[in-house]
């Protein structure tokens, strides 16, 4: 099924929770309300003819000027061989998106990664801990306004400019 068909099916079922279809260079994307994402995903997975059985990518991007963090769900169906991209916007100050872990178990780690690096809280996630960075890390590095801590457990993260450093 092509993206317009998928969009029509979603519109028919969810009405205004699903935004307009935005054409993209590779695949079309649909904006979805944060509150509806789990229902939309369940629908996309279970509905006959759609059958998105695979969450192939879950990315997030920080847009400080728009005051939002966007999660991008890239879905793929091995049965139907079609794909669609969903976008969910969250408020930048306290980003919360419901988890889709129950829909695709693969989302477990992908959501943890977004939480770790961008600080999006996935409500309902069973094990929302930092995954890549240590537990005691401060800040969310992939946010545009992230500032590095001067040291980590006594190891300085400040680096001298090696070119101007004098030999002693």
């Amino acid at each position, binding site marked *: 099924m092509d993206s317009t068909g998928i969009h029509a099916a979603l519109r028919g079922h969810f009405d205004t929770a699903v935004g307009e279809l935005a054409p*993209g*260079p*590779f*695949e079309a994307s649909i904006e979805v309300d944060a509150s509806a994402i789990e229902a939309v995903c369940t629908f996309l997975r279970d509905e006959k003819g759609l059958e998105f*059985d*695979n*969450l*192939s*990518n*879950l*990315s*997030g*991007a*920080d847009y400080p000027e728009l005051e939002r963090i966007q999660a*991008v769900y*890239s879905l793929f169906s*091995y049965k139907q*061989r079609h*794909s669609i*991209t969903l976008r969910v916007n969250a408020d930048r100050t306290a980003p919360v998106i419901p988890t889709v872990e129950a829909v*695709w*178990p*693969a989302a*477990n*780690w*992908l959501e943890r*990664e977004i939480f770790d*690096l961008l600080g999006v809280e996935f409500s309902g996630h069973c*094990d929302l801990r*930092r*995954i*890549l*960075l*240590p537990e005691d890390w401060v800040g969310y*590095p*992939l946010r545009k306004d992230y500032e590095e801590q001067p040291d980590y457990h006594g190891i300085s993260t400040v680096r001298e400019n090696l070119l101007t450093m004098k030999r002693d």
Partner: protein
Amino acid sequence: MSVELEIHDSQGLPTEEMTLNMGPQHPSTHGVLRFIVKADGEVMRRAIPDIGYLHRSIEKIAEKVGWHGFMPYTDRVDYVAAMACNQGWAMAAEQLAGIEVPRRGEYCRVIAAELSRICSHLLGVGAMGMDMGAITPFTHALRERDMIMDLLEELCGARLTFNYMRIGGVAWDLPHDFVEKVSHYLDHLEPVIEEFNQLLGYNRIYVKRFADVATVDADMAIAWGLVGPNLRGSGVDFDVRRDLPYSVYEDFDFDVPLGSGEMGSIGDCWDRYIVRMREMVESIRILRQALAGIPEGPVIAKVARNFKPPVGDVHVKIEAPRGEQSWYVSSDGSEYPHRVHIRTGSFTAMGIIDRLSRGLMIADLVAVIASMDIVAPEVDR
């Protein structure tokens, strides 16, 4: 995350759960992975992966170094098969900007990527043998890899981190005699793969260790997002090169090997092993066709030095040796990417290990990690 402390064996006697810390520096964790193993004697109750010991913030660096400048970093995303990552990044940037790569350039890419794939699979299966205690296959794999590295070195001057591809094509044309050398090497490699199967793959002990261990059925593999050889080992007939063709893979005739449960059940560790072995054979086929059919012409399209793709984002999927790599690249129209996210095969494969490990023996955990062919930087990036 709560695991009960006291457990009871079949006679109802209380036994104590043992927590083992495997890694981050453990001989079989392929780099720096860590598992917290909750074991009851030799039987694992869980193996909880702890990753991030090689998190090098590649995705953040992309936002600082610009479109062209990020290419060397993609080598380090998966250093065992750097060409595939090169290609993923180049394709993402090209699709954002709508650049058409010259056909010779695409052929060069395919040749480089397939050589890299053989290289990567060799290390993968060699490491599978080593983790099972057979060291000889590993050194033999290194011997073969050295020869491929010689070839790739002639192509781009580096043994491991190639930085060969550019946005719009490849950096250099094939060197003198390269086609002959590669075909000579492929002649040499084909019987070696057969020998590998005899030495390792069909070795009775090896089969016993790998067959029927950590079986992943097709539905589970798809739902957990397994990709590439791991997915095909579970019998799902999907290969990005064939089903969502990119580059010039449409020109080539090749099969997609699938796990068939030859030694046990579909989707066990042995299937994941044999899929890799057969993929090498298919790569040889692709290489032969590519070497025979390489057209003349330029290898790189004209791309501005000050490359600024229009605003937008793309998802690009390529078939890397460790499975489909999904690149999410977002551009805000400046000379720096706004966001790069790489969903790699090892990352999802790592995610499923917690689930698979329940009830296996500690020795099997090693087999599972090896058969998934997990490479640490791809997990952590």
